[in-house]
């Protein structure tokens, strides 16, 4: 928990032009739509990751529709905040967030991983407008964000930097190099999310290679650690605000989530890490999410 309170200039910065600042109810509605997008595009592509994208959907929505100061029509807007998903495999949620926020048409989602689309299996700078740095090899993103934060420091720029990591990804040593760096340089404009869904490809993170006690690790690397309920929008906003207000250390939000959240048969099952729902499974999922493939794919294709 932060022991300090944001000074007025920071609060002003927090209400910059490119922030949507949506209220909880609206965010919850958008998160539901994001989940529909994810299932629909995966069903269409019949390739891609389901589990992680669904666990990231709520805090992802909070970032894109409340917190981030961005201009999707001008992705290189100099005043922008920087966001980066170090877990490149969660492109279904990344692209859904981007499309819903206006970086590119929703219909592009229906060409996910397709030869003739821009939406690559892993985020690609030169294919998708708004992707600033490619990703897909785990463990590299927090370092990229350290570089962005250092650039902001050199330029005395108030840019905030948000990085999304996985919990399995914590096993990569480079994460701890970046953690040590950000702690040393007290990069308090940097805020990392960990999608703490307790699963990775081969099973439970604690069975594969345990990362506990994770909060102690980050504290020992001189970070401000904030726990949050990763599917409770109010708690997510509280955590983000706390991170934003914290001075002198970078913040990491341990977002306690459920892999596959929102689709009953996927929830908490690591087998859904890397595969898409088959069309009939997608239909069932979309029903749970209050729509149908026909309805939702039509919405995507029309926009």
């Amino acid at each position, binding site marked *: 928990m932060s022991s300090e309170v944001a000074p007025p200039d920071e609060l002003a910065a927090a209400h910059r032009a490119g922030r949507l600042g949506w209220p909880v109810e609206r965010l919850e509605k958008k998160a539901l739509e994001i989940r529909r997008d994810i299932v629909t595009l995966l069903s269409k*592509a019949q*390739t*891609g990751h389901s589990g992680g994208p669904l666990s990231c959907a709520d805090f992802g929505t909070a970032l894109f529709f409340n917190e981030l100061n961005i201009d999707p029509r001008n992705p290189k807007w100099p005043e922008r905040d920087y966001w980066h998903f170090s877990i*490149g495999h969660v492109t279904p949620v990344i692209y859904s967030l981007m499309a819903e926020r206006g970086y590119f048409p929703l219909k592009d989602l229906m060409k996910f*991983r*397709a*030869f003739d*689309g821009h*939406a*690559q*299996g*892993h985020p*690609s700078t030169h*294919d998708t407008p708004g992707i600033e740095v*490619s*990703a*897909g*090899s*785990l*463990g590299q993103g927090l370092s990229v964000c350290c570089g962005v934060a250092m650039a902001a420091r050199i330029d005395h720029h108030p840019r905030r930097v948000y990085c999304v990591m996985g919990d*399995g*990804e914590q*096993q*990569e*040593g480079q994460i701890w190099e970046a953690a040590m760096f950000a702690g040393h340089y007290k990069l308090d404009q940097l805020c990392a999310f960990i999608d703490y869904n307790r699963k*990775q*490809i*081969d099973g439970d993170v604690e069975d*594969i*290679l345990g990362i506990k006690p994770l909060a102690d690790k980050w504290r020992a690397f001189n970070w401000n650690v904030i726990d949050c309920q990763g599917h409770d929008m109010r708690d997510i906003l509280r955590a983000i605000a706390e991170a934003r207000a914290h001075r002198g250390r970078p913040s990491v939000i341990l977002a306690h989530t459920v892999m596959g959240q929102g689709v009953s048969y996927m929830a908490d099952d690591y087998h859904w890490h890397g595969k898409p729902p088959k069309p009939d499974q997608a239909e069932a999922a979309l029903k749970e999410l209050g729509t149908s493939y026909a309805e939702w794919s039509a919405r995507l294709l029309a926009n």
Partner: protein
Amino acid sequence: MTATISLPEKVEMKKTREGFGRALVDLGEKDPRIVVLVGDLSESTMVHFFAERFPERFIQVGIAEQNMCCISAGLAAMGKVPFFATYGAFASCRAADQIRVTVAYSNLNVKIAGAHGGISVGPDGATHQAMEEISIIRSIPNMSMIVPCDFWETYKATKAAAAHVGPVYLRFGREDVPVVTDEHTPFTFGKGEVFAEGTDLTIIACGVMVYEALRAREALATRGLAARVVNLHTVKPLDRELIVRCAKETGAIVTAEEHQVNGGLGGAVAEVVVQSTPVPMELVAVHDRFGQSGKPSELMDAFGLRAKDIVAAADRALARKRAR
């Protein structure tokens, strides 16, 4: 050695990496020194067969390729025969320094399995399509490297890797690919195999491109052109003698690989050719660009890695041969 291969019209399809997974189990039965490590990719690399059969000799390392490589080195130093498996992009690049200093410089008996090599990895896109492995591994002293062409050859290559004392890198693809060899096709570590005789030119291929080369040979044959097809599965150490012989006997060479053109199989063959018997060569490969998402077949077409591309290269090579 010559193992004349002729393809039926419809060829059985099977994954190379499955040959790896199966061979590991068979190796494990006979040799208690075999230990298998994986970086959170048990099923993709097909080491799950071994894991189920020999849980006490299976080590899950999590997502930490550098660590996995050096753990393997420590196991090898204690007399084990470790195989570590991950995607080729991460095996060759994320652990490059560890391979160079700890494994290769110590010349330890570590076997490295890089799954998902090549553009045919498909929808995952560029980051996961490993296409720099031959160049990287070939440059490191003491390393050996095999790029098997199908299920059966992968099975044999895995066993050959275990039998060879020293570090070996094995490269597999992701998709089902045509099975062009069978259980009895000869396979010798370090030796290329002439899969089909011919005198007009030689097509030297590795991996899935061996199939494309055989198909290209058929197409050329309809025009009365006799292409020799060499399966150069061991890209290091290189079968120099065979390459020189092919250059001398056929006077033109086309190489074919699912890999970057710079420093790959084509480069390796070119180095031998210019130092022995300079003949016209054409290199069928990925021309120094990153991959992208798409269906494997779309990508093989788009990146020019088909029999027809080999045929076109053969025509260029033959024209140059005639013009000399």
